[in-house]
């Protein structure tokens, strides 16, 4: 055996951990860890991996005794470029293109891949809001209003809710913020269809990754992780609805009964 088994398992765990934190399915995380350790000579009988949505466990019998590692993970939003990169890496490892030190180096590089620039993310959020406003029947001015609300929403998400708030309060306040902005724009005569404006602008909060991955995990038979992710998605949906609802209720009392 060329490499120490501890080192191989350590590398496999690192790859799995990056995948898990970037929003990959459980199945892919397990498979990648298996592939890497298999290729570098740690076979089935010497290892066991167990992956859940929020952490992974790896144990093995190595030449030095026992290997055991637990890594917690927290998904802060999808980083699909990392999933793509590790997928590519694991394919190339199997083609024999990498030595173990090279794999480690590559993993380190992938781990530090930069996020899309914040400004671009904010612009995308605005564009997404406007696009969805249009898809659900909003007119041009409504779309422009949704664009503005989407911009402000993502400034809030990137600088306030993501780093400092829980999922629950972040989405609740996000939904409320968007509704306040839309009501304000509507009141000053900017936009004709308040509902469509709000629908477009809340879309950037929609938990697409948790929802889709939850379904995939359940389809793969990873029920625990799938259930956790779907619960996460459901919770976010509810929080958005409550955020919107609370602002509408307050507004309704202030304006005396009618919403629009």
């Amino acid at each position: 055996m060329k490499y120490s088994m501890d080192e191989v398992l350590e590398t496999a765990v690192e790859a799995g951990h990056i995948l898990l934190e970037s929003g990959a399915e459980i199945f892919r995380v397990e498979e990648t860890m298996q592939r890497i350790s298999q290729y570098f000579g740690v076979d089935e009988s010497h290892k066991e991996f167990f992956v859940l949505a929020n952490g992974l466990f790896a144990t093995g019998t190595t030449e030095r005794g026992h290997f055991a590692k637990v890594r917690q993970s927290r998904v802060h939003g999808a980083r699909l470029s990392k999933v793509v990169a590790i997928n590519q890496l694991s394919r190339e490892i199997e083609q024999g293109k990498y030595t173990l030190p090279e794999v480690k180096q590559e993993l380190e590089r992938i781990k530090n891949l930069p996020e899309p620039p914040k400004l671009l993310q904010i612009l995308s959020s605005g564009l997404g809001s406007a696009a969805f406003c249009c898809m659900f029947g909003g007119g041009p001015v409504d779309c422009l209003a949704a664009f503005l609300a989407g911009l402000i929403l993502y400034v809030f998400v990137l600088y306030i809710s993501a780093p400092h708030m829980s999922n629950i309060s972040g989405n609740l306040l996000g939904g409320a913020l968007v509704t306040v902005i839309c009501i304000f724009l509507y009141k000053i005569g900017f936009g004709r269809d308040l509902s469509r404006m709000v629908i477009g602008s809340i879309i950037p909060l929609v938990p697409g990754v948790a929802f889709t991955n939850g379904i995939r995990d359940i389809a793969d038979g990873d029920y625990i992780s799938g259930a956790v992710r779907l619960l996460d998605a459901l919770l976010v949906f509810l929080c958005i609805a409550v955020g919107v609802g609370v602002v509408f209720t307050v507004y309704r009392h202030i304006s005396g009964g009618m919403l629009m």
Partner: protein
Amino acid sequence: MTLFVHFLAAAAGTVAFALIFDVPRGYYPLCALIGGVGFFLVELLMELGLSQTEATFIAAMIVTLSSRVCAVWRRCPVTVFLISGIIPLVPGAGVYWTAYYLIMNDTDQALTRGFTAVRVAVAIVLGIVLMLEIPNRVFTRSKTR
């Protein structure tokens, strides 16, 4: 005409989300196409008389199927296309209307909208799961030929 405008909007919206999910740039055109076609199908099928649930179910199947074909073709995880492409189908509007009618004390409408949103979500789940059940070799075999 409206259908076409909505198709473009859905494609643009999908790319916007692809960027937020940090999908590598090279995949944007395919993401846009899948997301746009998915939403276009829902609207088209509804105009042909299907319910929103049925239309979404079929669209979710097509989105998943084309995501898998693209994933094999471009040799990348299916997640890249699936997560972005499914976004236009997610019943975000349904969630809004449910909250809205609850606030307006219109319980009937709130229930109707709420159940529709749940049905649509289940339709997406079924559509994705069914198409994921097709074994991978079906896609890889047709590629080598």
